[in-house]
């Protein structure tokens, strides 16, 4: 294990222990242990069906665990509501861009501003200067500063991916989870996204699922390989790539 020193000194932001979920007897995630530190960019890779997306689902509460625990900043997520998990500081991007096609880019971002989240809060929500500034800042970050009034459904695929990342940034989460953020992006867009991720990972932890190895190399601090719902290997990109078990199940063929 050649993990970068320094990270292990702190208590991990996210601590997954013994996590198990089964669907009618099939264990999609099986006794999984995973720790993510503050300011870390962690990439999870693994062949299809390894349980990567299920892990994200479990963390953000979309799927309920059969057993085990997920501790986020000392709070147990497995018992919490989805929206409470989000409010606790976990943001999640879905595999396919999940944005509101009928709203403008501005409104998409505004929706994620962490105020007016209750029914009556939303009813009396006001577009304050703070909201405008935050939206503009995030929009600039995600390369959409000029397209605020564009209807989101008309954006390109890559721009939609960015927009969804931007929506997460609006929430200012401490743990950012991205499911295949560069899928369907052009080479230059990938580079831009890598740059974006490196910028936004300051002050928060990022958990990424990705297949594109070049992209993984350019962002990952540490890589975890999942196979059949279990951790197969964990460490730096190099160590993982040279791990014979990993080569056998994933990279080898």
């Amino acid at each position, binding site marked *: 294990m050649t993990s970068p020193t320094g990270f292990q000194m702190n208590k991990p932001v996210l601590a997954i222990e013994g996590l198990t979920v089964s669907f009618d007897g099939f264990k999609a995630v099986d006794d999984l242990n995973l720790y993510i530190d503050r300011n870390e960019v962690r990439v999870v890779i693994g062949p299809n069906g390894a349980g990567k997306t299920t892990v994200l689902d479990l963390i*953000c509460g*979309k799927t309920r665990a059969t057993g085990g625990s997920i501790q986020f900043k000392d709070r147990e997520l497995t018992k919490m*509501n*989805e*929206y409470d998990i*989000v*409010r606790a500081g976990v*943001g*999640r991007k*879905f595999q396919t861009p*999940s*944005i*509101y*096609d*009928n*709203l*403008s880019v*501005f*409104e998409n971002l*505004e*929706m*994620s501003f*962490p105020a*007016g*989240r*209750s*029914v009556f809060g*939303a*009813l*009396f*929500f006001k*577009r304050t*200067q703070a909201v*405008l*500034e935050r939206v*503009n800042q995030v929009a600039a970050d995600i390369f959409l500063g000029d397209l*605020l*009034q564009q*209807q989101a*459904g*008309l954006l390109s695929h890559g721009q939609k991916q960015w927009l*969804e990342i931007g*929506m997460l940034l609006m*929430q200012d989460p401490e743990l950012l989870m991205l499911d295949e953020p560069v899928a369907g992006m052009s080479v230059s867009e990938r580079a831009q996204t890598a740059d974006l991720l490196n910028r936004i990972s300051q002050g928060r932890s990022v958990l990424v699922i990705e297949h594109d190895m070049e992209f993984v190399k350019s962002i990952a601090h540490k890589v975890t390989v999942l196979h059949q719902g279990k951790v197969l290997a964990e460490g730096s990109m190099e160590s993982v790539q040279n791990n014979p078990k990993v080569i056998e199940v994933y990279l080898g063929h």
Partner: protein
Amino acid sequence: MNALNKMLGGRQGVVGLLILATLILVVFPLTLDAFRLNMVGKYLTYAFVAVGLVLCWGYGGILSLGQGVFFGLGGYCMAMFLKLEASDPESTKIQSTPGIPDFMDWNQITELPWLWVPFHSFTFTVMAVIVLPVLLALIIGVALFRRRVGDVYFSIVTQAIALILTVLIIGQQGLTGGINGITDLKTLLGWDIRSDSARLLLYFINAGLLFGCILFGKFILNSKLGRLLMAMRDKEERVRFSGYDVAAFKVFVYCVAACFSAIGGAMFALQVGFMSPSFVGIVPSIEMVIFAAVGGRMSLLGAVYGSLLVNYGKTYFSESFPELWLYLMGGLFIAVVMYFPNGLAGLWESHGRKWLSGVTRKPATVIASPAPGITPTPALADKKAASPLEIQP
């Protein structure tokens, strides 16, 4: 002022509202006789339900097939108060037990049931008209939306609730007047509601309340909550994982729709002079959905036009061609759903605007349909057109 303007949906919204207000508050009272005006008043009580349906079905994606339940609850609360007032010991002295409603006397009830007692108070009644239906909607909504019941399930469950309430009302004849309903309502706080002048005043009160509901609806739709509703229709998961309690928002619009329906029901009892289980059941509930569908499920004003038009058509055709009426109603339903999912408002948006010469703004081509096969609506288009100007710092 600017905020108000925005709330009403920009210039177009204000104009639309003014046209409807002129029609209802000026044109109808001036051109229709007392009888027809009372009929329009009755139609407008259905418009409350339709407006509520626009909120919860059009925007919230929740198709309730049991809005008659709330209409009925509101109506029954009001009717109970009016009936008690009409059943003073003096005018019921021929009964074996004077002072109780006549149908109770026929059912050998000798004492006013406890359920009825609080309805001696007008304040209580007005509160009950609002609170009871909202409470019921809250229970149903919390139970179903918290557990993420699918839209179709929700429709069927609400339908069953409408059925239960109908059977219950009919079965508890001594308490509710059974299938005949509560009839022969005469006065409200001593004021004869059957006279032409009273009917005229009630018509305006009714219209005023309706516009109140519409404005409240517009306020909701133009708030962040309105955008959240649309966002939920698009990507419910995304909204949930942006930290929102999706179920709470659904419960809220459902309760608002229930409240609107109940107000409509209470006004119905006042204007028509009775209430019966035939407004509670499945058939009236679904008919009210037609009103919203014909007017345009995404348009609050459209719902009012839809209610007026369908009911006018119903009266007209059932008078002239009773045989054709059901064909027409069914055909209208099928046609609207299949070909004009946005109803009159959608047609107006896609054809009317163009036709109305002198409109300078570009047709809303940049807006994709809110749902497959659904054309944009004024509300949507206006918001799109209005918001960009304001959000630039």
